[in-house]
């Protein structure tokens, strides 16, 4: 009942405002020739239409609920002097701008667009170039960030910023954005209940997507390609990772997905293709890995330690140099009903499940864990021989780390 009433009240409000709200034009020959002027003279809930042109402005503060729309992609050039747009009010919409040349500072995090302590904002159709931080959301909630394009030129981690940065911000939808060439494509810190969907994050210096101390977030249908590491999830709980594509995160310390101190997450229907390490996990417990496909990775999964009660069920492991690397002798993780392309067993009763259990950890992967340089011996006959003998009688690898029911056919 109270919900209905709220909606009714909201409608009433919008209606009553709509009568007084008006549209203000900003262009070089209009009454207001700068965006700042436009904002100064606008009343709450007005719409500001910014016409095509270049506006050399920075430090624009939006302190009342406004809808600011750029017609035919007007350019806002900050001239590398500082922050360009700052939203400090609820209910602000920014739509359709080309924002460039954000100032770089070592003491302040200048952003192309900052949202500070606001609710219900909509940020869409922006193109950001030559930036430090892109869209910086600070202590805000219930916003939408749609269809933006961030193109950075980051070279070093210490003097570059993130594409979309969330700090203490909750309930934000981030969809259809494309991020490249920044430090972290999307970064979340102390931010809960956010949805990150259909984005593409590539060629970023550090991570495509980075969680720190952020709980209950969902990311799905994103593509992470050619980043320092695809996604890093650290110190977070209840993250759902569904249907993402981790591709070609390739390099001496590159991962598709890095999990560190993560609990109770779900990793479902993802594809990990040609990463140096598909998933690297450390101190991560109670995670479900279901229906994922790992193909052509160096290591499909690298378990580094203190990882308990994880369940790996119904995944495809296709042509990885190593399926699992495991560095401890204790295991209570479950591997069940996965398809392993390296499986050599048989299925006499034709029920689609191999009659011989599969041991995904090879002795060689144990050795490489200990002495990384031994990787030079990959695929040597000697290694095949010792792997075989370890398979027959496990000495160094945990003897209960087996898939008792390996699938005979790849899961489609």
């Amino acid at each position: 009942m109270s919900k209905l009433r709220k909606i009714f009240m909201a409608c009433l409000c919008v209606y009553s405002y709509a009568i007084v709200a008006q549209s203000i034009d900003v262009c070089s020959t209009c009454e207001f020739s700068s965006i700042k002027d436009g904002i100064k003279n606008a009343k709450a809930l007005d719409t500001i239409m910014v016409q095509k042109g270049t506006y050399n402005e920075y430090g624009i503060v939006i302190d009342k609920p406004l809808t600011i729309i750029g017609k035919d992609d007007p350019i806002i050039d900050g001239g590398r002097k500082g922050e360009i747009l700052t939203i400090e009010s609820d209910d602000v919409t920014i739509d359709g701008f080309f924002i460039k040349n954000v100032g770089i500072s070592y003491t302040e995090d200048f952003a192309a667009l900052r949202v500070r302590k606001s609710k219900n904002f909509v940020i869409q159709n922006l193109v950001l170039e030559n930036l430090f931080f892109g869209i910086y959301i600070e202590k805000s909630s219930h916003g939408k960030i749609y269809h933006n394009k961030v193109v950075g030129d980051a070279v070093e981690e210490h003097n570059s910023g993130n594409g979309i940065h969330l700090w203490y911000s909750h309930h934000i939808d981030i969809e259809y954005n494309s991020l490249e060439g920044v430090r972290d494509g999307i970064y979340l810190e102390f931010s809960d209940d956010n949805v990150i969907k259909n984005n593409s994050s590539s060629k970023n210096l550090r991570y495509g997507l980075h969680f720190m101390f952020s709980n209950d977030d969902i990311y799905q249908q994103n593509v992470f390609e050619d980043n320092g590491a695809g996604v890093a999830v650290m110190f977070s709980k209840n993250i759902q990772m569904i249907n993402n594509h981790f591709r070609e995160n390739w390099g001496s310390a590159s991962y598709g997905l890095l999990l560190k101190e993560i609990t109770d997450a779900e990793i479902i229907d993802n594809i990990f293709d040609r990463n140096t390490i598909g998933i690297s996990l450390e101190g991560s417990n109670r995670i479900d890995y279901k229906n994922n496909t790992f193909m052509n990775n160096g290591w499909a999964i690298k378990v580094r330690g203190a990882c308990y009660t994880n369940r790996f069920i119904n995944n495809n492991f296709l042509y990885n140099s190593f399926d699992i690397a495991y560095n401890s002798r204790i295991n209570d993780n479950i591997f069940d009903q996965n398809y392993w392309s390296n499986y050599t067993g048989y299925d006499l009763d034709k029920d689609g499940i191999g009659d011989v259990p599969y041991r995904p950890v090879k002795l060689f992967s144990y050795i490489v864990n200990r002495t990384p340089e031994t990787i030079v011996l990959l695929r040597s006959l000697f290694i095949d021989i010792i792997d075989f003998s370890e398979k027959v009688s496990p000495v160094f690898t945990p003897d209960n780390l087996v898939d008792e029911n390996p699938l005979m056919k790849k899961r489609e």
Partner: protein
Amino acid sequence: MLKILKYSFYDLMRSRWSYVYFAFYLVLGIVLLFLNSDLSKAVISLMNVIIILVPLIGTVFGVMYYYNSKEFTELLLAQPLKRSTIFLGQYLGVALSLSMSLILGLGIPFIFYGLMKSNVIWDFSLLLITGTFLTFIFTALAFNIALSNENRIKGFGYAILLWLFLAVIYDGLFLMSLILFEDYPLDRLSLIGSMLNPIDLSRTLILLKLDISALLGYTGAVFKRFFGTNFGLLISFVILLLWVVLPVLRIVFKAKRKDF
């Protein structure tokens, strides 16, 4: 020398073993292509075969040929011919016919499969080039062994031992030393270790083309920097070439002084 090469070559071309060898590769190529329809996966499986079987067949065949054609060799020695000519001719005859079986046997199914249009053609050529190098290297080593041992059984024994050493035992020792010295920086040691053995060198060269993702892991970067560059590739081929030239020189040297 060309004449003797021709004789040896035709002699081998007519022999059953060349056909068996050729047919083996032909069947292998066809089976691999039909079983895993993916061309680059087939190249990986082939690599496993090439770095193990090619040296084995090269050594065994070389030793066998030398002992079998001993009477013919002695007949030739009675003629006014240079010794180096005779032995080099024979050596090249064996090595060339083996390489031909390898290249044709693997090449034909792959060409029919549509290799020319595929982008793994460079990987495949590299595979064939290293395979050919391995044939030349191990045939030369086999001739060395045969020249030094009158006793056939002993000769065969040494030949098999040589193969076993380079294909398996060397890697074992290499692995042990890497683990033993794991507290020290091992980049250089592992680089040198894999350059010294022609089988390891071929394997590394092919692997860097095929699944570099894993090799890029840790030390991998050092490797990639070395082998991945043209300079590294050049050095690797120079070393493979040295592995051919040095045993061949020893054949010439040994043949000159040998009492028949």
